Structure formats: structure tokens, C-alpha cells
């Protein structure tokens, strides 16, 4: 009894590689960025300016207009994903898990494949599909007599962002589908059978039995979508360029950060303001994830079988 437990070295040893690599490539740069945002170039090199960069970002009418525009677009981008991608993902998973569906493996693969494609390919292919000049979209609409519905969606201020969000949904709908599908499969047959005995079948079975059991997965998907969307950059950059046209209507935080940090065309990059935007993005994502963890995650009921 008097003998103290030996220090369990193996824990430290096994954790070390992951902790070291993660610290070196994630934590240190993160603090580097936070630190960079507190400096600016002044007389004779880099000077400490405290929070003045943030005052510029939120106080200067030009900077703040760009920032709020990007944040607003980002929120819309996220909303489209939440309203389209996740419900469609759940619906697809519910269909796939239906025992009567034939060729489920084919659908599953076909719907999941775009997820593993590169953003560059997806962006380029959709740009071609929707091109008013060479695209197949106008031709296909023409074939069903709906040519009048076609518009150069990616080139119009009102539609460009929504179109891009839907392209992204098309690409990533496979992820919620797979996660929900796995969650649905893990519901024990006894629970379903018991429900059937009680006369709960079909739609009401989905709403009353299955949905509550997959809610934790939906929560995880929402938070993944949130982080992914507020970090998004590639798709917009590939299809609309760094200026996120038309007229900045597709500018999201990622493209705004890129333009500021690395500069663009004649604009010389400003690492300090760039880091300031990156810090603001970090704060937004942190708030979102924190809200989810404390307000939602803890209230989710989990069922053990």
C-alpha cells in the first residue's frame, strides 16, 4: 500500500509523437498568427500596436464593410449547407438503409465519390457545366423546353453565392450521408422490432425511433459543416478567383484573408492585417464550436444498447 504507483511512462511515450507533431505544425503557427496580428509595420520595421489592427478591421469603413460582407456571405454559405446538405444527407441515408432498396452499394458509392474529388476539379467541371457558352446546362434545359430558366448563375450577383454553395453541397453530401447511414445501421434490430410490435412503422418510426437515435451524429455533422464552411476557400478561389466576383458577392472569410495576407495583382500582401482576419476567423469558429459543445452537445441524450 505504501508503495506509490509507478509513473506510467508509456502514456507519455505513446502520446508524444502526436502531441509533438500537432504542436509543431498547428499550435505554434496558431500562436504565431495570433501574435502577428498584434504588430504592424511602422517606422523602422515591426512595431507592437496592440489591438489597433482589430480597431482598423472593425472601425475603418472599408475594412469593416469587406469583413461584414465576407462574414454575411459565409453565414449564408453555411445556412445553405445546413438547410440542404444535411437534410438531403439524412434522407439519402434513410433511403439507403431501407432493406428493400436494390443497388444500395452502387448509390452509396456514386453519391460519395464527389467527396474524394479535388476542389479544383469540382470547381472547374461545374464552371464548364454552367458555362453559358459551352456548358451543357443550357442545352439540357433547352431539351426539356425550359431554356428561359437558364441564366449565367455564376456571373450574377444575386445567384453566384447560392450556386457555389449548392455545388459544394453536391460535392459533400456524401459525408453526412455516410455518417448517418452508419448511425442508422447501428440501431439494434430489437429496438425496431419492439417499435413494430407497438405499431410504430414507416414515417412515424423514422421520426419517433430512428431520428432521436441519430441526433448525436447530426450534431457532429453540423459542427463539421460549420468548421468546414467558415474555413472554406478553395471552391470560391477556383471558380471566381481571388477577387470573389461578381462585385465581391461570393467573398467569404477565406478569400478575404487570402487577398489581404498574400496580396493580389498590384496589391502587396499585408501579413499583419491578414493575421488579424485569421484571428477573427479563429474567434468565430471558436465561438461556434464552444456554443455547440456547451449548449447542444451536453443536452443531447445518448442511448446505450
Amino acid at each position: 500500500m505504501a508503495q506509490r504507483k509507478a509513473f506510467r511512462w508509456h502514456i507519455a511515450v505513446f502520446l508524444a509523437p502526436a502531441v509533438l507533431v500537432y504542436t509543431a505544425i498547428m499550435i505554434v503557427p496558431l500562436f504565431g498568427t495570433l501574435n502577428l496580428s498584434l504588430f504592424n509595420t511602422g517606422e523602422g520595421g515591426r512595431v507592437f500596436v496592440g489591438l489597433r489592427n482589430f480597431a482598423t478591421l472593425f472601425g475603418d469603413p472599408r475594412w469593416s464593410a469587406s469583413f461584414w460582407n465576407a462574414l454575411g456571405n459565409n453565414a449564408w454559405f453555411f445556412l445553405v449547407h445546413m438547410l440542404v446538405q444535411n437534410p438531403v444527407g439524412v434522407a439519402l441515408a434513410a433511403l439507403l438503409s431501407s432493406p428493400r432498396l436494390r443497388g444500395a452499394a452502387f448509390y452509396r458509392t456514386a453519391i460519395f465519390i464527389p467527396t474524394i474529388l479535388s476542389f479544383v476539379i469540382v470547381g472547374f467541371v461545374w464552371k464548364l457545366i454552367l458555362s453559358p457558352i459551352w456548358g451543357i446546362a443550357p442545352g439540357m434545359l433547352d431539351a426539356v423546353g425550359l431554356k428561359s430558366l437558364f441564366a449565367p448563375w455564376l456571373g450574377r450577383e444575386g445567384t453566384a453565392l447560392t450556386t457555389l454553395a449548392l455545388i459544394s453541397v453536391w460535392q459533400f453530401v456524401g459525408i453526412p450521408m455516410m455518417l448517418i447511414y452508419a448511425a442508422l445501421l447501428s440501431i439494434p434490430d430489437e429496438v425496431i422490432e419492439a417499435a413494430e410490435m407497438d405499431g410504430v412503422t414507416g414515417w412515424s418510426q423514422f421520426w419517433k425511433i430512428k431520428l432521436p437515435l441519430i441526433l448525436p451524429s447530426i450534431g457532429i455533422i453540423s459542427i463539421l459543416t460549420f468548421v468546414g464552411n467558415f474555413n472554406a476557400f478553395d471552391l470560391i478561389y477556383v471558380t471566381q478567383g481571388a477577387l470573389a466576383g461578381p462585385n465581391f458577392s461570393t467573398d467569404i472569410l477565406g478569400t478575404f484573408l487570402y487577398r489581404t495576407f498574400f496580396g493580389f495583382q498590384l496589391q502587396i500582401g499585408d501579413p499583419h492585417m491578414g493575421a488579424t482576419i485569421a484571428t477573427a476567423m479563429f474567434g468565430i469558429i471558436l465561438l461556434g464550436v464552444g456554443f455547440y459543445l456547451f449548449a447542444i452537445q451536453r443536452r443531447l441524450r445518448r442511448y446505450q444498447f
Partner: protein
Amino acid sequence: MTKTIRLALLASTLLGSAAWAQDVTLTIESWRNDDLAIWQEKIIPAFEAANPGIKINFAPSAPPEYNAVLNSKLDAGSAGDLITCRPFDASLELFKKGKLADLSDLAAMANFSDVAKSAWQTDDGKQTFCVPMASVIHGFIYNKTAFEELGLTPPKTEAEFFALLDKIKQDGTYIPMAMGTADQWEAATMGYQNIGPNYWKGEEGRKALIEGTSSLTDEPWVAPFRQLAKWKDYLGDGFEAQTYPDSQNLFTLGRAAIYPAGSWEIGVFGPQIGGAFEMGAFPPPVPAEGDKCYISDHTDIALGMNAATEHPEEARKFLEWVGSSEFATLYANALPGFFSLNAAPVEMQDPLAKEFVSWRESCEPTIRSTYQILSRGTPNLENETWTASANVITGAETPEAAAERLQQGLASWYAPQQK
């Protein structure tokens, strides 16, 4: 023991340097990877034949990465001996940091006009740090075969230009003009900067803007936007989502009659069209009959010397050659559409390139208005002009509102405009 090692080391360094001394290799940093074959097959052999003992290695990187790659190489001390210079601030910055050598005393500098050198000089024009190589000229390329078919002639004035566009539109066989707003820079570079100099009177207006005696809301700077706003009706269906390569293809496939162009397209369009139709070119139409014409003859590319080069003498020798008329003839013919800035006239073979360069005789050349000094701050005038030009064409902003916004942006950081 240590002694032998020391001796061996000494011997090897001596031998090594002796081997180097025989042939000096100069490395050129460049973003023109499209031109690699031309340098290796035409330009470098010509120089090496005349200058035994100097070898040239042309080492380009991809255009979008060039500035970043070059800066880090210069900081790390691994950059080549000769540096291809971007115009204005990017190179000026390097010169100020001591990365580029002062070349004002190069004999070949006398071969270039002040406008030609302005892109690679300090603001006071006293020091020049790159040898100008080439400029690009803006104008309109047209489908000559289509023009003949419809019985049209190139326009001289703005009124004639729009009458011509109306005729092409009525006929309906061709899209009057191939341009899109998706990439934005097309609207600014091939639109605003192309037609603008006729209104702001070239250098006169550009300098007045820099001095602060004229502002972007003045009529000469709003008028080009007014013309752009009218272009909307003559562009193809869905031009809002039309990209730069789309526009190029529309024209080279013979579906569009007129292409607002930069001369760099000459070398690209020729092989793509492959003789399917003939091309012609006309300068931007003047506002009224008898007005003096101005063209954008934009200084685009030059060659400088790495201040830290180990072979400054050989590098200067090469630069003197780059400033010679021999190089000018070689370069201009190898790359039709990139015009020599050399004051000595250059004999060119390509008829379209000849047409473009002939405007230098009849019109006053100027450079793009936003490139010198005015794009130093945030918001950046050049980048803002992209958005403004695209907005004016799509109708998202009126010409007056766009000009007002540009002026406010410029005045927010540029002191001479703050009165």
C-alpha cells in the same frame, strides 16, 4: 593529419574556382515560362556565339508564383544573377531593399525613352535599375473575313464604333464583341485601360492624377466608364459568367467579330485560328472626328541585375546586349505582340504586330493609369478598377457611382488627392 586535410581542402577550392573561371554561367530568373524555348533556341545561342566564356541559363518559374519565389530566393541569397523585372512597385521595392543593382550608368540606357524607362526608375527618375525589354499595346483585333462579308470598315470615332456594333448585332451572324466580366481584369485592362487614354489624354491625364490636379470623378475619367456601360448590349449571351479563355475561344472560333485586345494575343491567336479567317486591328476609336489619338503602350517586362551577383561584369555585358537593337529585333520577332521599347525602329515580320506598332507613329503612347504610384496603398486602385469596370458593364454600378467610389478609395490614402 589536420594539415593534410587543410591542404586538400585548399587544393580543391583552388581547383574548383579555376574550373569556374573558365566559363561564367549567368542564371536568369523569369516568369515567362512560355518563352523558354525561344530563349534556349534563339536568344541565348545568339549571345553565346558573340560572347565566348559566358553561358546563360534561363530558369523561369510559374507567373503567379514568380514574385513570391523571387523574393524568398533573394532573401536566401540563392537567386540568379539576372532578374526579370515586373513593372513599377514590385521592382522598385526590390531596388530599395538593395536587391537590384543600379544600372543608370549602362551605355544601353541611352537607347530608351523616358516613358520606356519610367516603370523601372525611382520616383524622381534619377536611378534606373532594369533594362526595358518589351511593352504590350492595347487595341481591338477584328475578324477581317467577317468584316468583309458584312461590308464593314474599322471605325475611327466612338460614334462609328457603336454604329458598327449595331450593324453586326442586327445581322446576327456574329457576336459583336467577345468579352466577359467573370474574371474582372478583362473589363479593366481590355476595357477601361484600352479606351481610356483617348479621354484622359494619355500621359497628361495620368500625370495630373498623380499630382492631384485632376480627380477620378472628372469627366475624362468617367467618360470611359460611360462607354463601357454601353458595351453591355453587344457582348455575348451570359457574358457575366464568361471568362477570359471563353472570350479568346469565342473570337478564335470565329463566333465573335471584335475582340478588345492586348497585343500579347497576337502570338496566341495566330496558331489557334490556323488560317480559318484573317485578323485585322484598329486602335481605340477617338471621341470625335479629328481628335488626337492615344494608345496604351504598357511597359511590361525588363531585365535587372541581382545586386549580390558574383559576376557583375558579365551580367552587365549581357544587359548591354539586351539593350541593343540586335536583341530587340530578335525578341520582337520571336514573340510577336511583345514590342521592343528600344528607340531604334525594329523590323518585324508579323503583319498584325506591325499594325499595332504602327499606331506609335500616329498616336501618343501612355502606360496604364493605375500602375505607377497610385496602387501603392489600400484599397489598391488597380484592383478596385477591376471590380468597378466589371460592375459598370454588368450594370451593377453607374459610371458616376463607380468613379466616385474609386476616388474615395484613392483619396483615403493618397495625400495629393486629399484636398
